[in-house]
């Protein structure tokens, strides 16, 4: 009976994936014909013509760069994040971290294909189109090699698949970040279930609210076709709110619901391999160039700006953390430098395409100091076991970066300001730092509230049904052998 159900479910799932491909073929023609026609202009000089992206608007350099950037972002998940986290846990749990990250990447990619892309980057078929999209492009229906995705420039387009891929890598890494907060004490299956639910109810809506918009050539004719936070004017270049604050807060909620590790504060739990952590942190930095510079969607000077900001802010943050430790502990540590580097990368993420390399340095240094205080003083005082400092680095670094973006984007400080897309041709908007910072704070607050609530509901639901935590015996002996039947090291 159960076998038949599984067989039927398997057949259904397979047929859905296969028919999606066939359906896409037919739908492509329908979509190409049904591109939104602009409202007829009142101006007598302009003949109202529907804007249709064409293949000539696609630049091979942009496509090549974006595909490489996507691969770099996937590198950030596997193996960079896996090793960064893995080295920080005890040897008996190393494999569990690697497995959690790898599986989350796989599951997230499939979920993105199935309903994630549609929920995030469409606005049709939804009762609240500024909060989340619908399922019109579920299983990538209507997406094929002839459809396009907008960039931030008028008349410049990418093949839609390229955009789907790039965003897919973001959808993969964001849930993987969360696991660090409750490492060494979570059961595998509930974790994967949580990830699917969290992506659907937290990640896709927030990504939609911050990043969805109709595109520079369409917005002026569909002026409300954008995500809620985008509409407020919140600036988030590569995902300070969408990725880092989102994951960081979810992590904090998780570590509070699950509780501390057995032996926390009484037993010694030093990292089993800071060598792995350093390899991970280094690969994260390299990959992050794809994450930030790729978020410009074009192979041009603005991508280079995001690239250099990702360089200078990170360098400043790493050096700052080492200096702080020299002062406070008389010994600058590798873990500190690596953590500083990650904190800088997190903080510059929302500001990468907006800051000046000089203000990026300041932002990185400030983020390093604030994160240092949170992962040492605050965490020890409040005694929450955020094992790998997901909240202390990603949430706090993200908050510093997101609010700091309002400051460093100011053209008066060498920043790029904001672009006014409300007319047919993009132009520079008037920048008022105080109101921009206020908008950033609103965006941060909304993200924190939304993801905090969703995460709490999901974690508590799982806790009181199938349970989140392994038994004390399993936790003490180690997750590797008990959850996965393997040892990371057989030496």
């Amino acid at each position, binding site marked *: 009976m159960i076998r038949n159900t599984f067989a039927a479910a398997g057949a259904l799932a397979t047929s859905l994936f296969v028919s999606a491909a066939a359906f896409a073929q037919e739908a492509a023609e329908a979509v190409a014909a049904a591109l939104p026609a602009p409202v007829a202009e009142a101006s007598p000089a302009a003949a109202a013509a529907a804007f249709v992206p064409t293949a000539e608007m696609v630049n091979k350099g942009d496509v090549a760069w974006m595909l490489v950037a996507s691969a770099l972002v996937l590198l950030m998940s596997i193996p960079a994040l896996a090793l960064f986290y893995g080295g920080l846990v005890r040897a008996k749990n190393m494999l569990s971290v690697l497995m959690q990250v790898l599986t989350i990447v796989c599951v997230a990619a499939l979920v993105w294909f199935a309903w994630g892309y549609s929920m995030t980057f469409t606005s049709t078929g939804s009762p609240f189109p500024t909060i989340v999209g619908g399922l019109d492009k579920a299983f990538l229906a209507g997406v094929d090699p002839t459809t396009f995705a907008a960039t931030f420039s008028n008349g410049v387009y990418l093949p839609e698949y390229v955009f789907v891929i790039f965003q897919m890598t973001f959808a993969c890494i964001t849930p993987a970040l969360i696991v660090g907060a409750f490492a060494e004490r979570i059961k595998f299956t509930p974790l994967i279930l949580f990830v699917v639910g969290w992506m659907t109810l937290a990640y896709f809506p927030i990504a939609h609210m911050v990043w969805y918009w109709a595109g520079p050539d369409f917005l002026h004719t569909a002026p409300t076709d954008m995500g809620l936070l985008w509409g407020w004017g919140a600036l988030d270049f590569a995902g300070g709110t969408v990725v880092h604050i989102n994951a960081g807060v979810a992590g904090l909620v998780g570590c509070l619901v699950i509780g501390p590790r057995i032996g926390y504060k009484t037993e*010694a*739990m*030093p*990292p089993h391999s800071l060598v792995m952590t350093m390899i991970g942190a280094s690969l994260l930095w390299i990959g992050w160039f794809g994450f930030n510079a790729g978020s410009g969607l074009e192979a041009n000077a603005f991508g280079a700006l995001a690239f250099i900001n990702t360089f200078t802010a990170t360098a400043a943050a790493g050096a700052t953390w080492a200096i702080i430790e020299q002062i406070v*502990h008389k*010994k600058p*540590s590798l*873990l*500190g430098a690596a*953590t500083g580097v990650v904190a800088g990368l997190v903080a510059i993420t929302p500001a990468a395409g907006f800051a000046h390399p000089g203000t990026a340095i300041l932002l990185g240094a400030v983020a390093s100091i604030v994160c240092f205080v949170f*992962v*040492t*003083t605050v*965490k*020890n005082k409040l005694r929450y076991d955020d094992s790998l*400092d997901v909240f202390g680095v990603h949430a706090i670094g993200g908050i510093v970066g997101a609010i700091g973006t309002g400051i460093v984007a100011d053209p008066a400080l060498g920043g790029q300001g904001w672009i006014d897309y409300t007319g047919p041709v993009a132009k520079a908007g008037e920048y008022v730092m105080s109101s921009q910072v206020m908008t950033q704070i609103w965006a941060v607050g909304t993200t924190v509230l939304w993801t905090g609530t969703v995460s709490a509901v999901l974690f508590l639901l799982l806790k009181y049904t199938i349970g989140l935590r392994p038994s004390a015996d399993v936790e003490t002996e180690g997750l590797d052998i008990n959850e996965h039947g393997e040892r990371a090291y057989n030496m």
Partner: protein
Amino acid sequence: MKFVIAIIKPFKLDEVREALNGLGVAGMTVSEVKGFGRQKGQTEIYRGAEYSTNMLPKVKIEIAAADALVPQIVETIQQVASTEAIGDGKIFVLDLASATRIRTGETGDTAL
């Protein structure tokens, strides 16, 4: 026959081994161990989490020797492995009930 166990500082291993070779000690077993005595450990700090380590890395040498050779072995190890600092280690001597060479089956002193 006696069984000599010496816990020494790791960097002294090569010197001790050469000195014992000179005495005619044919073989030994060496393992990496952790332990403490009067020598206190270091404090390790990982992102604000402080750990005082009581365990220090040492090297343990085990030698099976004929009774006649044992006093020389103990004296040699003590002189060579000493740095006159706390944490130099200790040497223990136990009675050895029997020894067997696996390849030939010899027992007693000829097995050493």
